[in-house]
């Protein structure tokens, strides 16, 4: 055999052998665990969010299994990498359902992934629990009974910061959202609410996703004479924007306001972000005994402070476990859905209530500010105001607020 052909056989043979591998390895798990499938993003540009999903699950899994699990069965988390691509997300989710037999899916990061996977859940008869996805449509036009959102949605975040700004002396705002679903929807949501609060939106613009030079937009914002600029840019883009805005001195004249204030951003941007205000879905600085203890345990296990999705994922898993316990079964989804609807949960940041009409968890909303604190290696979200759940959650199946 020639060398080239030997290589060919090795490649082909190795691939074939590898096909059998996973089937053997998966058998290693024993004791009839309750499986939760997580088709999340572990590679590529959004991998930091998948990392948060993993961290939250790992901490919760370790703790609950040490106490004997749920209904006497251990929790098992199965992670799959979707790379941020909805086609891959559906493929991986389908594999988790059909091959691994999971009845619970979570960890979807992008709205496109969540919508695609959610649409399949009634067909597969599995529950999709969102701990990250903010797209309003998931609980309105795309709602079905197998979907539960236990996190703060995009409109809720915009609402919280609008409530705060309604009471501030600022009157003129600019809206800058990345040119895709979330960016546009968030700016629209904020714009509606801030105008209802009798303030003025002096300009809106939508830079393409992946913009690396915001200079022109910064010029526009300066020219508009806005006092505050509402930003709905995905993680990387917002980091770049904040850095450049700081270099242009914009942040001194115009207050940056963000729908989501994340630790990831604060670490990447650094001090240039000091003073930014916005909403946070889970600020780790919430001062309740339960949360302080959680932060300590989280830091002990992972060496970092919990970011928004770390916390929300942990809460989601805890709530799901409680619901399964209450329903007395991890396999009869109808019973679980019934147990979950109209149920309460004592979360890290306050009380949660799962609405029956749209499966949106009613929860407190927070307006926060990025401040320096010598105790921490990066900026932290200081809570400026806390709003009770009823004030920040929209009316059932709509994006309107009372």
């Amino acid at each position, binding site marked *: 055999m020639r060398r080239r052909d030997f290589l060919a056989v090795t490649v082909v043979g190795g691939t074939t052998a590898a096909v059998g591998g996973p089937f053997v390895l998966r058998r290693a798990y024993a004791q009839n665990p309750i499986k939760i499938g997580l088709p999340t993003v572990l590679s590529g540009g959004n*991998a930091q969010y998948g990392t948060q999903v993993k961290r939250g699950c790992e901490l919760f899994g370790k703790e609950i299994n040490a106490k004997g699990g749920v209904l006497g069965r251990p929790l098992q988390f199965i992670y799959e990498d979707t790379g941020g691509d909805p086609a891959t997300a559906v493929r991986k989710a389908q594999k988790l359902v059909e091959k691994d037999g999971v009845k619970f899916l979570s960890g979807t990061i992008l709205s496109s992934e969540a919508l695609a996977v959610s649409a399949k859940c009634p067909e597969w008869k599995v529950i999709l629990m969102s701990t990250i996805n903010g797209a309003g449509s998931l609980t309105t036009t795309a709602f079905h009974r197998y979907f539960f959102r236990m996190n703060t949605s995009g409109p809720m975040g915009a609402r919280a910061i609008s409530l705060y700004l309604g009471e501030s002396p600022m009157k003129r705002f600019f809206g800058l959202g990345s040119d895709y679903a979330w960016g546009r929807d968030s700016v629209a949501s904020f714009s509606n609410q801030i105008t209802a609060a009798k303030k003025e939106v002096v300009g809106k613009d939508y830079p*393409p996703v992946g913009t*690396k030079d915001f*200079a*022109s937009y910064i010029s526009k914002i300066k020219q508009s004479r806005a006092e505050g600029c509402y930003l709905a840019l995905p993680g990387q883009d917002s*980091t770049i924007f904040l*850095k450049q805005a700081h270099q242009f001195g914009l942040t001194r004249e115009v207050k940056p306001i963000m729908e989501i204030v994340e630790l990831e951003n604060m670490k990447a941007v650094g001090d240039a972000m000091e003073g930014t205000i916005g909403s946070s879905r889970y600020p780790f600085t919430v001062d309740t005994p339960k949360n302080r203890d959680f932060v300590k345990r989280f830091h002990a296990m992972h060496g970092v402070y919990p970011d928004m999705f770390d916390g929300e994922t942990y809460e989601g898993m805890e709530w799901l476990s409680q619901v399964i316990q209450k329903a007395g079964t991890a396999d009869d989804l109808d019973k679980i859905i019934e147990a979950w609807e109209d149920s309460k949960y004592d979360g890290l940041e306050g009380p949660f209530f799962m609405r029956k009409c749209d499966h949106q968890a009613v929860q407190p909303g927070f307006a926060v500010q990025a401040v320096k604190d010598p105790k921490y290696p990066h900026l932290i979200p200081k809570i400026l105001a806390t709003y009770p759940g009823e004030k920040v959650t929209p009316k059932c199946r709509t994006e309107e607020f009372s």
Partner: protein
Amino acid sequence: MAFVVEQMLNALALAGLLFLVSAGLSLVFGILRVVNFAHGVFYMLGAYLGFTAVKLSGQFWLSLIVVPPVVGVVGALLEASTLRFIYRRPPIYQLLLTFGLALILEESIRVLYGPTAMGVDPPVFLQGAVDVLGAVYPSYRLFLVVLGIAVGVGVWLFLQRTRAGLVIRAVAQNSEMADCLGADVARVRTLVFGAACALAGLGGVAAAPMTTAYLGMGISVIVDAFVVVVIGGLGSIVGSMAGSLIVGAAQTWGAFYLSETAMVIIYAVMGAILIFRPWGLFGEEE
């Protein structure tokens, strides 16, 4: 007036950055006839290595000098161990090889640095802003303009006025003939590839203080680089400069007045050039 000055400087700064990235791409195509899909990843590598260099030494200028050659060496090694063997094959193979290399490199960077973006501060001298004709403008962006011009002139002089540059141009025109005349074609190719990667790396080091070093910066810049190179002319340094100015201006002014359609217009221009004058504004007609 201040506004106009600001926008012009924005366009120039962006052009400077685009030039640093696309010059190498243009050279590799003109001289090796290879479309290097991994080019964006070398740019990213430069940004990340720049971050490390600044962190270790605290000196931005040092990293500007040290990192590009390192990136160049990485590129040269990759070329010598992979591309070198497949030059005689149809171009699709070389293209896809660079695609595969891009995957490997990009993921390796993620393994080494993790998924979070890394901020780099510009040197103290360049922090802050200066007054230019009434506009308060960040000094670092002015530096990008100067750097772009300096590098452009430097590379052009090298290719046009030195003996090494002559050999390189000979290989570009007719590699077999150059080989007969005694040029070490393989070595020229490796050097050019390495130099192109070094240029991309320089672009990355220079860009990091403005954009941070982040995963996916390679993908976001490669399409822009292709547009610049097509408009300017594959293989021409002057073309890359012209293309960068055009695309930089279009993106800057376009973002201000027509943000949603700016890219569409650029693609249309690219298409028109490819149809009516494929060798670009300054390329050589084939």
